[in-house]
């Protein structure tokens, strides 16, 4: 998948967690938890959906690398994210 395609999938997952958010307003470098007003339970759900949709399991030690939209997309690209059917 291209970086843009990964970004689209990530944004669609985030929209499911915080549906009132305008995706275009998310600042790429900002912490997603602050930006979307999500808590640690929401963040865990986000990672579950990433695993389902893109086939990448994010270990806890890599959490700092998926904190912002930009770093998350870059990390998933590096890990070889691939769209799944779900």
């Amino acid at each position: 998948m291209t970086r843009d395609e990964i970004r689209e999938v990530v944004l669609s997952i985030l929209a499911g967690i915080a549906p009132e958010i305008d995706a275009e307003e998310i600042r790429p470098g900002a912490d997603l938890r602050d930006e979307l007003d999500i808590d640690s339970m929401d963040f865990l759900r986000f990672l579950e959906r990433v695993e389902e949709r893109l086939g990448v399991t994010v270990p806890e030690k890599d959490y700092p690398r998926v904190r912002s939209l930009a770093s998350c997309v870059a990390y998933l690209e590096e890990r070889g994210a691939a769209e799944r059917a779900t």
Partner: protein
Amino acid sequence: MAEFRMPLLGADMEAGTLVEWKVKPGDRVKRGDLVAVVDTDKGAIDIEIWEDGTIASVLVEPGTKVPIGTVLALVTSAGEAVTPPAEAEALATRPTPAQPAATPRRAAPAPPAGRARASPAARARARELGVDVSAVRGTGPDGAVTRADVDAAAAQARPTSMRQAIGAAMARSKREIPHYYLAADVDVSRALAWLAAENERRPLAQRLLPVVLLLRAVARATREVPEMNGLFVDGAFRPGEAVHLGVAISLRQGGLVAPALHDVDRKPLGELMRELGDLVTRARSGGLRSSELADATLTVTSLGDLGVQSVFGIIYPPQVALVGFGRIEERPWVVEGRVEVRPVVTATLAGDHRVSDGIRGAQFLAAVDRQLQAPEAP
């Protein structure tokens, strides 16, 4: 013949509106079945029944607001002859119907896709002002809610029923309960190291969050200091027969609920995590059960995700204590004469002086600390 009544779903509740019957006369029911939906200040709640039997008749029509304790239906116990509905109806006093029900509200409806969008700045402003952003009419591009829209909505806003209910319960608490407050810093390096190793071997969907360790520590600490767990009713303390922790859950549109997580001291961490996830989901999207709103014997609030260091809460009556946790953060910590960097959390206790003194509160927080030093305990 048993009577199924409008339950008390919180210290601040005086009445509820029957929204929907999930059973009809002649249906068999068993203990724990969901039989009705009631709208309260906390949203729409699924009501369970605590009798086995057959619904003989329903006495209150959907859309009717009735005081707590009003008989909603009659239930024929198992083995008892079923009473004809007309006769059963005559056995109960019918409540006076009140105004038509307001539109049923789920406890915290998640805004559906397509609802007005809002920028992070607008949402931050809404949170600051206590405005439900999903209810604000947007004037930005494609109807997006702007910061100015939020300001305008705040200027016109009246307190929501949930805000009024929270205010009433907290005002009552501060009037009636002589609070005392204690705080203790707890080194959670052992707990977090154990959690990291445990999560390493768990599939992502079964990973544990630190909050479940905190909840279990609180629940088990009540075994050493039981006067933190229970209710103050009719001028006396009634110890809890089990440890049902009220978990304060913030709602995306503002406000909070504190439904109960049952038997927290006895359950494995994986089960607690699953149940907590389910509780959070239902609190925010609807589907809390009456037992979950009425059963809590001690409430825990954690504001760590929001970055605060400590939280000094107000006891939720008729409970007699509230435990708070702030953010787990690295701090300088003295270990055997040396300063080390350790993950530390500040645990706080709001206690009820009618039931306990500060010394017992201090012993309770010490017990929470001990529990967190033994995360591997089964």
